[in-house]
């Protein structure tokens, strides 16, 4: 009985931490993005609200909440309102299996620094990520607007097309590690004779990066919200906090993809000062160094996201689809076969 109470209390605490972490991350990534984009265009970006502009996300959130919310005449109100909630829900769920640090010894028990340490972690993540398309397509369809419908269709086709290559790229990692658990994959990268999978799987890394960018609808694959042709794409008819929820979902998905890259390819939480075998010591500070390494790797990849947005132009829709189906998919299969050959012979 007390074991159950322990599990439930631990889960509630971890869930709240995950939600708050994603929310804070969303706020400060938007600020960071605007400042970096500004610097890359030789201007400042938001620096006036509070010291270094640090209160800007709060001001933005307040503004979004206090705006007038209109639902146009022809919308199907139930679906129209639930679509942003669904997007946000999916984005919040996806982070659950990412281990942000080594297990930590607290209150007489080893506790994972992942919300859930399930043995099919990657499969769970893929399943949740592919649900993300529902919020977008339903929101677009229920808006009864031409731009929305086109944007929703485009994004639906784009997200499912790149999911194939993404799934096969993750599969090559699974082959090398021999497990679907993210914890296991981090460990597998530090077995003797192994190294970070970014060096063993350069093609897989490339596929995950491209697929991740397309899956989160970020530049150069942000055709979903191509302003010049589609106004705002699927969220043309959304305003205020309802629009904010779609944005929240997008940035949270960025964080999840960055965390995934850090876990699968960049060695997870392991860095200088952490060691690989953690349960020799019960001092929590070593685990916290691991968390810091993880956040650093994740932050670097988010910076890469922003950098790419400032650098690359948006690609054309026909190029996008042909690239996904005619280049990425065969490349992913070839990568998978080479990896499989290597694994089955070793």
């Amino acid at each position, binding site marked *: 009985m007390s074991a159950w109470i322990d599990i439930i209390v*631990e*889960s*509630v605490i971890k*869930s709240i931490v995950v*939600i708050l972490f994603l929310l804070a991350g969303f706020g400060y990534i938007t600020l960071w993005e605007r400042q970096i984009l500004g610097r890359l265009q030789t201007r400042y970006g938001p620096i006036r609200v509070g010291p270094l502009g640090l209160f800007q996300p709060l001001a933005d959130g307040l503004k979004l*909440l206090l705006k*007038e*919310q*209109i*639902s*146009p005449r*022809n919308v199907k109100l139930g679906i129209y*309102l639930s679509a*942003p*909630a*669904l997007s946000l*829900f999916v984005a*919040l*769920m996806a982070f*659950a299996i990412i281990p942000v640090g080594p297990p930590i010894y607290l209150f007489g028990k080893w506790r994972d620094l992942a*919300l*859930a*340490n*399930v*043995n099919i972690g990657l*499969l769970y993540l893929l399943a949740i990520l592919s649900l993300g398309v529902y919020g977008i397509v339903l929101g677009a*369809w229920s*808006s*009864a*607007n*031409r*731009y929305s*419908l086109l944007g929703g*269709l485009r994004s*639906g*086709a784009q997200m499912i*097309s790149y999911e*194939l290559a993404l*799934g*096969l790229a993750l*599969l090559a990692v*699974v082959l090398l590690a*021999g497990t679907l658990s993210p914890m296991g994959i981090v460990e597998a990268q530090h077995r003797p004779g192994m190294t970070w999978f970014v060096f063993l799987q350069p093609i897989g890394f490339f596929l995950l990066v491209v697929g991740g960018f397309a899956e989160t609808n970020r530049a150069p694959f942000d055709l979903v919200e191509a302003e010049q042709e589609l106004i705002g794409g699927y969220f*043309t*008819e959304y305003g*205020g*906090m*309802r629009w904010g*929820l779609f944005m929240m979902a997008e940035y949270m998905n960025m964080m999840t993809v960055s965390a995934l890259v850090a876990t699968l390819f960049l060695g997870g939480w392991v860095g200088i000062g952490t060691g690989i075998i953690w349960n020799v010591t019960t001092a929590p500070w070593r685990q916290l160094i691991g968390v810091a390494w993880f956040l650093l790797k994740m932050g670097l990849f988010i910076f890469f996201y922003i950098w790419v947005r400032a650098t690359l132009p948006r690609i054309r829709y026909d190029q996008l*689809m*042909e690239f996904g*189906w*005619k280049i990425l*998919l*065969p490349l992913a*299969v070839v990568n998978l*076969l080479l990896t*499989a050959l290597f*694994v*089955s012979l070793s």
Partner: protein
Amino acid sequence: MLTDYVPILILSLLAGGFAATNVIATLITGPYRPTREKLSPYESGMTEIQPPKQRFPVKFYVIAMLFLLFDIEGVSFYPWAIILKALRFPGFIEMLIFLAFLAVGYIFIWKKGALDW
């Protein structure tokens, strides 16, 4: 272990509650002064003549169908990928045969032009 999934259940309750609260908050906060023009669908400043037809190019259907096919193939790789170390080389050959069948279909749809946009 089924208890491994308890955290996910609890997160789904909290996340669902959080998302729903946000949407409900949008119904309460902020002023609400609708006018006829404000509630019309956005059409780049034009008045809407008729609501959009819910029809779209058949290509999107084709892509969705192909996705279903290939995604299911992709999922069937997962169990194989985990036990490949135990299957050793024969396991690799078996998957090669499976992939050859898949490749025939892939080349077929490519030649048919289903992948051209």
